[in-house]
C-alpha cells in the first residue's frame, strides 16, 4: 500500500472524492431543521441539489472518504488493500474546514462522510465520530450530515454518531450473503445487519422518548440535568473519548457517553437510514433484489435503498467482464429504481411485480405498464370515480396527478383534456381509463394490441437510457409534460 505523506488539502480532496464517487446516494432530504441560532446552516425536507456533475448526477453533499486506506480486500472496490493506489487520510479539522467553507459559499447542503477501514472498524468509526462532533460542537454546523456506519464497530460508537447526524447508512454491499462471501470475504452479513438494526432501534426509542418528554415532569427534569452537563460534553467526548469509548465495559463511561450523545441534538438520525447494494457483480435476479429491498423497507424501516450498477473498476477476472468499459446497463438500474418507487409510493408488493417464473424486468416496458398489461381484467378505470390507490395503478398516472384528480373532481367531472393538463401522460394512460364512461379512442382490451402501443412509446426512451443519453432522474414530480414548466 502506498501511503503518501505531506499531501496538500487539494491533493487529498482529489484522491478522497475520487474514491467516494461510486457511492450512489447523495440525497439531502428527509429533515426540516431551523438554524441553531449561533452557527451556520439548516436543512430542508425536500433536499436541495447544488450542482450536477458531468454524469448527470445531483451534487448535494460534499461526498468524500475520510481515508482510502483499507485493511479489507473486497473484489469490486477500487480501494481494496491489494490495489496499488495512492492512499490519503484527512484530519477531522480538514474535513470541517472544507465542509464549513463550501457550505458558506452555497456549494453544498452538507457532508456525506464515508471511509475505508483504517486499522480496525472501531478506530475508523471513532475518527468519523470525532469529525462530526467537532463539526457540530466547535463549528456549530447546522446543515445536513450523512455518515456511514462501519460494520463491526462497537455499539456505543454507532449510537454516539446517531446523535450528531441526520442520516446514517450501512452498506449492504451485495444482495445476498453468498455474494458477500465470494466478493467481500472480510465482511459478513451479520456485521452489516447488526448496526442497521441498532440504528433502527435508536430511531424507534428516540421517537418514544420524545413522546414521553411532552407529558412528563420527571423527564423534563432529567433533561435539565443533562443541559447542565452540556458544556462538559464536548470536552468529555473530544478529549477523552478514545479511552472512554474503548473501555465500554465501564458503566460510568457508558453513562457519560450516553449523556453526551443525547445532548448532541434532539433527534436520533432524524432523516432516517438508507443502504446501497451493488447490482450485477453477482448473479442475483431482479426478483431476488426487489425482495431483499422490500424486506429492508419492512423489517429495518429504511428510508431508501440505493442500487449501484456495477462497474468493474479493478478489471478483476473473477467478476463479470465489461469489454466496452461501461458497466452494467443503466436500464437495469433504472428498472430497479422504478420498482423501488412502486413499492414505496404506489402500494405495490415485490411479488406483484416479479416472480420465480418471471425473475427479471421487461426490457421493453416499465414495471407498472408490465403489471397493468398482465392485469387487464382490472381495467379500464373511471377517472371520475376510482379511488386514489386505484388511480395510482394506472400507467401514466403518478402520485401528483392522482392527487390532483381526486381533488379537482370534487368541483366538476373531468375529461381527457383536463387530466392531460393535470400531468397525466395520456399516451400511456389511454388504454386503461375512461372519462365519464368513455375511452379516449376505441381500444381493444387485448394484451398484444396494448403492448404494441406502449412499446412504441417506450422504445425511444429505452434506447436513450441504454446509450447514457437521457434517462430522467426519478422524482415525485412525475409530470414532465405538465404546463409550461420544466423542472
Amino acid at each position: 500500500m502506498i501511503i503518501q505523506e505531506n499531501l496538500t488539502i487539494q491533493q487529498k480532496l482529489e484522491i478522497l472524492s475520487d474514491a467516494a464517487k461510486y457511492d450512489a446516494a447523495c440525497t439531502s432530504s428527509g429533515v426540516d431543521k431551523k438554524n441553531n441560532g449561533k452557527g451556520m446552516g439548516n436543512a430542508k425536507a425536500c433536499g436541495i441539489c447544488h450542482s450536477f456533475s458531468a454524469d448527470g448526477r445531483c451534487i448535494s453533499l460534499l461526498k468524500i472518504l475520510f481515508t482510502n486506506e483499507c485493511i479489507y480486500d473486497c473484489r469490486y472496490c477500487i480501494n481494496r488493500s491489494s490495489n496499488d493506489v495512492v492512499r490519503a487520510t484527512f484530519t477531522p479539522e480538514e474535513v470541517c474546514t472544507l465542509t464549513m467553507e463550501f457550505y458558506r459559499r452555497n456549494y453544498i447542503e452538507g457532508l456525506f462522510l464515508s471511509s475505508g477501514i483504517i486499522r480496525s472498524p472501531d478506530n475508523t468509526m471513532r475518527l468519523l465520530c470525532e469529525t462530526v462532533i467537532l463539526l457540530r460542537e466547535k463549528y456549530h454546523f447546522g446543515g445536513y450530515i450523512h455518515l456511514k456506519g462501519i460494520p463491526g464497530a462497537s455499539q456505543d460508537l454507532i449510537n454516539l454518531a446517531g446523535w450528531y447526524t441526520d442520516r446514517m447508512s450501512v452498506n449492504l454491499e451485495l444482495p445476498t450473503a453468498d455474494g458477500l462471501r465470494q466478493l467481500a470475504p472480510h465482511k459478513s452479513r451479520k456485521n452489516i445487519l447488526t448496526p442497521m438494526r441498532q440504528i433502527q432501534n435508536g430511531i424507534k426509542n428516540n421517537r418514544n422518548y420524545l413522546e414521553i418528554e411532552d407529558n412528563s415532569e420527571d423527564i423534563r427534569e432529567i433533561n435539565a440535568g443533562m443541559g447542565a452537563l452540556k458544556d462538559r460534553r464536548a470536552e468529555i467526548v473530544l478529549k477523552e473519548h478514545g479511552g472512554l469509548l474503548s473501555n465500554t465495559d465501564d458503566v460510568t463511561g457508558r453513562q457519560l457517553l450516553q449523556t453526551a450523545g443525547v445532548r448532541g441534538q434532539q433527534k436520533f438520525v432524524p432523516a432516517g437510514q438508507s443502504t446501497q447494494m451493488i447490482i450485477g457483480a453477482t448473479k442475483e435476479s431482479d426478483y431476488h433484489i426487489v425482495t431483499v429491498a422490500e424486506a429492508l423497507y419492512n423489517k429495518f424501516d429504511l428510508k431508501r435503498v440505493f442500487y449501484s450498477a456495477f462497474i468493474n473498476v479493478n478489471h478483476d477476472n473473477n467478476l463479470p467482464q465489461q469489454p466496452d468499459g461501461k458497466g452494467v446497463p443503466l436500464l437495469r438500474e433504472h428498472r430497479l429504481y422504478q420498482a423501488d418507487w412502486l413499492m414505496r409510493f404506489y402500494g405495490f408488493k415485490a411479488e406483484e411485480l416479479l416472480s420465480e417464473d418471471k425473475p427479471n424486468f421487461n426490457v421493453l416496458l416499465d414495471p407498472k405498464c408490465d403489471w397493468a398489461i398482465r392485469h387487464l381484467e382490472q381495467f379500464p378505470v373511471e377517472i371520475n370515480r376510482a379511488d386514489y390507490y386505484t388511480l395510482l395503478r394506472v400507467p401514466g398516472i403518478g402520485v401528483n396527478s392522482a392527487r390532483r384528480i381526486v381533488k379537482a373532481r370534487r368541483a366538476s367531472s373531468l375529461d381527457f383534456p383536463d387530466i392531460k393538463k393535470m400531468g397525466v401522460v395520456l399516451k400511456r394512460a389511454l388504454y386503461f381509463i375512461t372519462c365519464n364512461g368513455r375511452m379516449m379512442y376505441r381500444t381493444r382490451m387485448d394484451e398484444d394490441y396494448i403492448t404494441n402501443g406502449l412499446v412504441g412509446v417506450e422504445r425511444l426512451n429505452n434506447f436513450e437510457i441504454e446509450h447514457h443519453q437521457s434517462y430522467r432522474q426519478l422524482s415525485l414530480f412525475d409530470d414532465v409534460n405538465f404546463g409550461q414548466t420544466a423542472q
Partner: protein
Amino acid sequence: MNSTDTITLLCEDTVDGIFTAIYKAWELGTGHTAVQVEDGTSMSLFSTYRKVDTDSDIAFRVARSVSRKISEEAYGMIYNAALSDRPGKAQYIYKFLQKGFKAGSDIVNYLQDDDVRNVYEMSRFVWRESHKYMGFVRFEELESGILCSRINPRSNVIPLLAEHFNDRLNQENWMILDTNRDFAAVHKKGEEALLIKGVTEEQLSSMGKLSEREKEFQSLWDCFYHTIAISERKNDRQQMLMMPKRYRKYMKAENN
C-alpha cells in the same frame, strides 16, 4: 366614458403593487375592470387606463383577507405568481381571486379551470426556479468577509431566496443581486435581509476584491466538482436537463 368600456388599472411590478391594484379594481366593480402590470406595452383601444400608486397597507389587507377567507395555500400561490415574469400575471391573479372568494379554500384544487391553472402554473414555475437557485447561488467572499452573489433569473426570486438564506446564513453578511432586475437582497449578520431596488452590477463590483482564501476554495470546489463525476457514465443531456445553461452564468466551476 362609454359604459361598455373597461377600466384597466396599471400598477407597479411588485407584489404590493399588484395587490393594491386588485383592491382598487374591486372597489370599482369586478364586472368592468382589469388589472395590468405597467410595462408600456399592449394597450387596448377599448379600455380606459388608470395608474395606481402602490400602497403597502392596502396590499397587506388584501394578503390578510386572502389568507383568512380563502386559505394560506391560496395566498402562497398568488404571492409566488406575482413574482412571475409572465405578461398578464396581474389579470390572472385578479380572476383567480374573483373565483376564490366565492369557492373558498377548495379553489386551489380546481385545475380544470383555466384561471386557476394559470395561477397554479405560474406559482409552480416561480417556486421551482427559486428552488433551483437555492442550490445554484454561488457566494464569493470579499476581503471584508462579505459574501456576494449574482443571479440572472426569469422570475423575481430574490424575495424567496432572501427568506431562505436569512435562516441558513444568519450569522454572515451577504448579498444576492438579480442582474436582470438590478434588485438585491442585502443581509446584515443576525438581521433580516433588506430588499433594495436599483442596485447595479458595477456597484457590486466596486465593493472590493475577492479575499485570498476565496481563490483557494474556488479551486478546491473546482477540483471536487470535476473529480466526483464518473467518467464511464458521462451524460451531458441529463446534466443539461437538470442544470440548464441559463443557470450557469455565474457558476464558475460548472462553466469549465
